């Protein structure tokens, strides 16, 4: 057993209102500069929809993530020698048009325009060619199902067994905020020819070394979530950094901090590094979720704590793992699920699937809705969060409904139904974390390796100048 700590995130989609505050704060902090204008380390998609970049979930097209080949885990884009041949031309590399061409507006024409019969307009101008352009697609073109045609092309709808027509009377939608998943088995790391992408040992954050990156661009098609981007100005790869400078100081990422719905949770998970590959190689995609749960370790178990100390994980990290809201949501209550587990990267950003209004068909006489009565088809949610396994999603949604039922009973004084699986106490805890969602309950982030670094810094006192932090 080799224990590692991972900073992980949960998003409670039940509360996401699609306001894009997370995207905007992230954009302003990280990608508000030339070469990165088109990048959204955090973006919010309306589902169903083809997303950003277009059709990112269609791995027949992009060949992202891993697959089992004769029982062995291999990148979908081929063997190592096969991939090195693609250094010269990568057929699966997305182009700028798969995202969108970034633009600005000629605002100055509003001021400099001469007196005319009509109002002056600020026309769009490309940030790449600096020429006038026609806007054909943007980072959030499908917001609230805006582009009806592309919505129907959602690959998840196609993969569902049932027929979904997206006619007006049975329309449904939900929001899906996406960041880099800081996977346990990241395909981008495995695909990087230069070895420039790595997982940080202390907190599992996946980073691209801007010195080590040679611009071979293999990480971009390899990531099944398309969350590594190519900077056209520096010609190197960039991705969400999980706001690591904030994490190191015990603060949550800006997307999580600024979330007005208070639906993001962050905390530490402990996992067994030796079993990661095995977990990612589960024969059936529907079983991957369970195999990931199995490698997440109980931080209250004395044996686990001992092993963690042996690996050099500091006490405040073990404490944070015990208090982790993410551990509760993911492992204890099992209501937070991985996005597209079938890509086999073992994503460490988890989603509590959303409840939705009941369908018109059952509207007439319903007291409390059943999972199967909801507008968003279970089969659709299962494509996203269950690798096609509907039971996983149903179990999660049922717990959310049971929580509501119990809280209602407590409020009205009705008898608590017998069928509830968990203790009353558990539902109340769930309610407190999910509905009340205090800041200090949502984020339990230990400041980075405090004990060691404080000591080290003291040793360094007086030994280095201003221009060379850390001494040289």
């Amino acid at each position: 057993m080799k224990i590692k700590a991972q900073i992980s995130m949960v998003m409670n989609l039940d509360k996401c209102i699609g306001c894009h505050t997370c995207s905007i704060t992230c954009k302003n902090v990280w990608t508000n500069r030339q070469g990165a204008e088109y990048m959204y380390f955090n973006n919010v998609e309306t589902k169903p929809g083809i997303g950003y970049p277009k059709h990112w979930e269609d791995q027949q097209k992009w060949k992202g993530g891993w697959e089992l080949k004769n029982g062995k885990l291999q990148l979908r884009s081929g063997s190592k020698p096969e991939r090195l041949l693609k250094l010269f031309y990568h057929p699966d590399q997305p182009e700028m048009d798969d995202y969108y061409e970034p633009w600005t507006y000629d605002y100055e024409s509003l001021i400099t325009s001469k007196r005319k019969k009509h109002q002056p307009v600020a026309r769009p101008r490309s940030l790449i060619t600096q020429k006038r352009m026609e806007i054909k697609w943007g980072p959030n073109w499908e917001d609230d199902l805006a582009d009806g045609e592309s919505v129907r092309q959602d690959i998840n709808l196609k993969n569902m067994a049932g027929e979904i027509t997206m006619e007006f009377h049975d329309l449904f939608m939900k929001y899906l905020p996406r960041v880099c998943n800081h996977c346990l088995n990241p395909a981008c790391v495995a695909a990087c020819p230069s070895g420039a992408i790595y997982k940080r040992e202390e907190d599992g954050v996946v980073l691209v070394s801007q010195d080590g990156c040679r611009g071979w661009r293999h990480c971009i098609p390899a990531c099944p979530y398309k969350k590594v981007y190519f900077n056209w100005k520096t010609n190197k790869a960039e991705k969400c950094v999980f706001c690591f400078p904030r994490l190191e100081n015990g603060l949550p990422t800006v997307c999580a901090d600024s979330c007005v719905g208070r639906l993001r949770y962050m905390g530490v998970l402990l996992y067994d590094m030796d079993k990661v590959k095995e977990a990612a190689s589960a024969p059936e995609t529907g079983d991957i979720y369970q195999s990931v749960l199995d490698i997440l370790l109980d931080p209250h178990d004395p044996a686990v704590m001992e092993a963690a100390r042996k690996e050099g994980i500091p006490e405040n990290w073990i404490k944070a793992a015990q208090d982790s809201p993410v551990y509760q949501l993911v492992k204890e209550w099992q209501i937070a699920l991985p996005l597209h587990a079938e890509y086999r990267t073992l994503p460490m950003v988890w989603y509590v699937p959303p409840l939705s209004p009941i369908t018109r068909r059952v509207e007439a006489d319903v007291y409390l809705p059943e999972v199967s009565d909801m507008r968003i088809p279970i089969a659709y949610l299962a494509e996203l969060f269950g690798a096609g396994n509907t039971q996983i999603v149903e179990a999660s949604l049922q717990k959310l409904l049971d929580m509501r039922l119990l809280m209602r009973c407590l409020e009205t004084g009705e008898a608590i139904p017998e069928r509830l699986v968990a203790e009353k106490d558990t539902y109340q805890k769930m309610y407190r974390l999910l509905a009340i969602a205090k800041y200090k309950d949502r984020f339990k982030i230990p400041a980075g390796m405090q004990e060691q670094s404080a000591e080290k810094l003291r040793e360094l006192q007086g030994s280095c100048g201003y221009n060379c932090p850390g001494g040289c």
Partner: protein
Amino acid sequence: MKAFLYGVLPYIALTIFIGGTIVRYVYFERNWTTKSSEFLSKRDSQWGNPLFHLGLFMAFGGHFVGVLVPKFVTEMGGTDEHTYHLMSLAGGIPAGILFLGGFLLLLKRRFAGSARLKVNTSVMDRWLYLVLLLALMSGMLATLSNIPGTFDYRETISPWFRSVLMLQPDISLMEGVPAVFQLHMVSWMLLAMLFPFTRLVHCLSVPVEYLFRRDIIYRRK
């Protein structure tokens, strides 16, 4: 003039080539990149880029044997001058066609293709393409003009190049070298001087170690 071209300039070129590359790697690794433009436009890079690189590898291999391996070694191996010349033509002409053809496709893509490629084309890139074109054309013309094999570069240019590497340049060897070959000499020296300042440096980053490394990398701060 000859003394400068073949006794001094090669050393200036090699110094800039090696010194500049080291300085860039040590102090400016942040901008060490292939400068790939596939993200901006995939058009024409599907054929142009692989052909260009294939031709380049073939040409590099040919130059390696022709310039660095002394004539007596190949002759000891039982290859007489005539056979060697035929072999070099058989490899060199296809290599040149692929190399030059790929390069022209890439030039067309860059300067007559998508307008977006402008942001991937710096002033230094323009100089690079000019000098590279010069080196390619002069090399191709030299090969074609010497199909009959009247000029033996392995008696003149190759020993001179090795003498340069041995730090005892023998300029007399370069007497009577045809003009097109001399142009080729000057162009490679210019190219070597441009090398550290351009995207060419990515050829030193061929990811061989990738074949032997583990999939997932963990790194300490």
